[in-house]
């Protein structure tokens, strides 16, 4: 993900701002890291350049 995505995303649970922690970058893309809610503290992973902002109870890779 590019860092400007931070302007439009929020915590899916309480809609508060997220804080970005970068683990690795490729060019101008964040490839891995975490997004942490500044209010509730829930963390969301960024893997292979894609932020996973599903609520924790929906995070499994199995459908439905």
């Amino acid at each position, binding site marked *: *993900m*590019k860092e400007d*995505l931070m*302007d*439009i*995303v*929020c*915590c*899916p649970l309480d*809609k508060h701002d997220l804080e970005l922690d970068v683990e690795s970058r490729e060019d101008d893309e964040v490839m891995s890291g975490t997004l942490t809610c500044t209010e509730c503290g829930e963390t969301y992973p960024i893997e*292979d*350049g*894609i*932020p*996973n*902002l*599903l*609520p924790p109870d*929906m995070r499994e*890779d199995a*459908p*439905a």
Partner: protein
Amino acid sequence: MTDLADRRGAETQVYQPAEDTRLLAEAAVSEIEPPARVLDVGTGSGYVAATVADETGADVVGSDLNPYAVRQAADRGVPVVRSDLVSAFRDGAFDAVVFNPPYLPRDDDAAREDWMEVALSGGDDGRAVVEPFLDDVGRVLAPDGFALVLVSTLTGVDEVIEYAGERGFSAVAVREESFPFETLSVLKLWK
């Protein structure tokens, strides 16, 4: 996961562009005037998001529940977020939100437990996904923003318009196309 498994997943687990996809993309290209920030909900293969970005120059982000879909859309060059409908996006963030929801009423005889089923099935009445979308989409729209939603006669166009109306939306069909078993419409919704 291996690359081969990834590719197989993309082929069998992600809805590929079809008539409904193209109708929504066409409507979006004619309705969206840049500079605009656009969200494509349920972006799937990323076709609508990429088409709108290429043809209008708008800033388009895609979201999907399905991990194979966000991967495929990202590989097409679409900035993506894995999200449940619009829940991970800020209030007032978008000038336009486009959505081709899973809209087929569930057929228990044909039902499968995979991502393709999630991409197609709109529950018992075909509206199980579009209704929660309509409950929340107003929150992420900018003051002059609008949503473009694909609906089928199989889903019940009047029912969708009525449900949206109860949530304060005005609606007009900006595109319509008839097929042997359904008529597809793209509804423009605004407050």
